[in-house]
Structures are given as C-alpha cells and as structure tokens.
C-alpha cells in the first residue's frame, strides 16, 4: 500500500536517518521525500513529506518506531491511484531507453505507469506505444503527464495527450 506521511523532524543535521531506518527495517520502499526547510514550525521543527510503499499491517509498528526515534507523525494518508490517463508515443521508443522514461514517472511517488502496449512494425521504422498512467489525484496526473511529455520531447518522440488534459474545462471531464 502506498502511504504518504507528514512528519516533523528536529532542525539538526542527520535526522532523516530516523525516518528511513524504521521504514526500511519493515520492508518499506521510500519513493519521495520533501523537506520544507522554509516552513519551520513554532516548535522549531522542520515539516517533512514522505511517500513510500509498505505492507498495510506494518503501519502501526512503523508509527511506533518513528516516534521512538523522536519523529513526530502529524498525519498518515493512504494513497490510492485514482486518476487515469492514456498517452500515445510515436518514434524511436526503444532506442531512446523506454525503461528510463517509465522509471521517471514511477519515481514521482504519486504516479505510475500501469500499462504499456507497444507496436514495432519495422526495425528502422518508428514504433508506437500507448502508456497508461495512474496518479493519486487530478493535479498529480497533470504533473506526471507534463513530465512524460517533457522526457519524450527531449527524446524526439511525438507525444499525443488526451484532449482534456489541460483543456477547456481544466481536465475535470475525462482524463482517461
């Protein structure tokens, strides 16, 4: 299960290890960490936002482990991938390292590539692929589509996005 947590850490060096150790000890996989150094609390702690995958029944144990380490757990959110979009890619998809393109989306922590169908008609000809991205929310979906677009354009691939992604009605109608 994918979990997001708002934590507070002491504003001294070397605090992050107190978060990472319990997560990894319970077999969790950290996907994203954001430090809000600019938003220091009145308790003189630093807010940190973490996203990781972990088995659901280990959550309670993790929370205890964190608090034992002096980490304040402000909020725990179970993230579900709710929003979906399909994106077409055309060009030399394989030669330009498809793996890395997918990894970049997966490493955001809020979106992942769930499905990919590829069609390669000829060795030297352009291939075509349709990628399905799932994200935790609409904004996250837009961000991940923009990210995919940026990577693909850098690789000289043609990217075809859904019409309502950033369209007239702000993407609420039909992103997938």
């Amino acid at each position: 299960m994918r979990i997001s947590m708002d934590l507070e850490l002491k504003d001294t060096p070397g605090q992050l290890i107190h978060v990472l150790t319990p997560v990894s000890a319970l077999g969790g996989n950290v996907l994203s960490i954001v430090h809000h150094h600019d938003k220091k609390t009145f308790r003189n702690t630093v807010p940190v936002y973490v996203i990781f995958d972990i088995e659901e029944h280990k959550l309670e144990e993790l929370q205890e482990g964190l608090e034992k380490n002096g980490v304040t757990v402000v909020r725990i959110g179970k993230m579900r991938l709710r929003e979906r979009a399909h994106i077409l890619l055309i060009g030399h998809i394989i030669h330009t390292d498809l793996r890395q393109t997918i990894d970049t989306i997966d490493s955001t922590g809020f979106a992942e590539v769930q499905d990919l169908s590829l069609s390669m008609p000829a060795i030297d000809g352009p291939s075509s692929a349709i990628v399905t991205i799932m994200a935790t929310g609409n904004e996250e979906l837009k961000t991940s589509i923009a990210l995919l677009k940026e990577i693909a354009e850098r690789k000289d691939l043609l990217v075809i996005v859904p019409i309502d992604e950033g369209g007239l009605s702000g993407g609420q109608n039909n992103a997938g």
Partner: protein
Amino acid sequence: MQDNSSPFKLAIIGFGAVGQGVARVVQSVPHLEVVAIADSKGVALTPDLEDVLARKRKGKSIANSDLTALDVIRTVDHDVVVEVTPTNIENGEPGLTHFREALKNKRNVVTSNKGPLVAAFGELTELARAQGVALRYEATVGGAMPIINLIRDTLAGTQVLGIRGVLNGTCNYILTRMAEEALEYDQVLSEAQDMGIAEADPTYDVAGIDTACKVVILANAFFNRQVTFADVNVIGIEQITQDALQLARQRGFMVKLIGDVQELTVAPKLIPLGHPLNVSGTLNAASILTDTAGEITVAGKGAGSIETASAILSDILSLMRERD
C-alpha cells in the same frame, strides 16, 4: 440609409473554387448584383454569371475589359468586395492589397482568405473601423460551420473562455481513414490527393499550418490578442502511424488534430469516442466554452466550394440587412 430596393452590389475578386461557388449561390438571392468578377487573368464587368461560369469550366478567359482587380476595387461602384483569392501565409498577398484598397475606398470586405487576416489582423480591423465599413470573415474558419458569427451575434453577452476544435477537413479525413481502414499515412494521403481532398503539396494542411491560421484569426477576433502565425506552437499529423491509431482505438480513443485558441497550440490529441469533437471524415467541429452558456459545440462541412460560399453569403446577407 439607402433605398432598400436598390441592388446590393458585389465584386468577386478571385474566381477559383470558392469564387465560382459564390457566383452560383448569389444567383438565387433577390437584390444582389455582381458588378464585376476578377481572376488572375482579367476582369469581367457586369457579367452574365452562367456564361462566366461556363467559360471558366472550359478554361476560357472570363475577361471582357482591360481593368485589373485593383481598378475594379477603386473605380467600379459597389458595396462589397468578396475577396476569395488563395491564402498566402507568407505575406498575405495579393489579398492584403485588395483588402487595404477596398477598406480605403469605403467598401465592405467579405472573405474566405486567411492570409491577410493572419498577416495584419489588427491593422485591417482598425482600418475598417476608421472607415466605417465592415470586414467579415466567417468563411475563413470551418467553412459552412458557423463559428465567428455564432460567437459575435448569437453568443453576444457571454464571455468566451476558450475555443478549440477540429478545424481542418483534410487532416480529419486522413486520420479517420487511417483509423477505420487500418491504412498507413502515405497511402491515405495519396487517396486524398486523388479525390481532391488534399493538395498536390499537402504541407499547408498536414503540417497544421491551416489550423494554426484559424487559431490566429479566432485568437485575434475573440481574445483581444495581437498574435500571428509565429506565436502558435504547431505539430502536424505527418508522424502519426496507423499502429498508434489502433492502439488508441483499443482503449476507446480517436486521434484528431486539435487547434486550441486560448493555448495557441495545434497538436494531435486523444479524443474519447463519445466526445462531441469526435467528428469523422472531412467534417469540422469546434467547442466554445463560455462563462454563462457553458460549452457549445458546432460541427459542419469545413471545406468545399458551395459550403464555403454559403458562409460568404451569410456574411453578405447580414451586411445587406444592416444596410436596410
């Protein structure tokens, strides 16, 4: 105000497919009189329309005078210059000179020619305003599909927040055929060229240039912009593969070339099968998002001699009503 029984006089400048379409459709309208027709080779004064159309069909000259198109605009008495010379997006000529001369001589201009509007929209609308005449260009976007007058007249009082659509029939025909018949781009393009749907040099359509011109016209007309072709980010359809269209279809999408006026972009987009912009063949469609009326979608024939002429005729008739 003039006596409304006096004929409303037109000069048709440009006598290709659209000009000939105009000559056909105006014949059935009472109180409309074509005082001159100019093509690239000469001018016919007070033409017999059937005769001129027959001459054109046989490849004969239509000229019966020594005047040029500019002479007609300057010296022959008429109310409306119907400027239907071919679109030139490099510098708008020869249309741009015709527009300027017509407006300077206090003649209304009705056109299907995008070139002058893309090159000098601000200058031309300002000149028309200063001279107290009208510049009407419904036929430049979407052919027979009403959009410009729809927004200007019918939707007056709403604020337009966005316009986007399938604005090029050639691209739509190619993408539709590729998806439905599982044919490759090159093959469908040749077929479209054989049928007269695509030009021998198809670049203007398939590279998205024509759609971008329409985006420029709509942006200048309804978003108070001063943009030109260079401001539009354009991607055409030449790279699209049949495989990509099949993959999209398996997931319930078609690919359409979409012009987005607010974003100033032209790009192929995935359209859900049930979406109102998912029109097939050579059809055009446009969605207008307004503050109070929500989203309104229109569809219709985007090209063709008679269809484009019908849009020109609607502009002429609205000017005639304003005169009367």
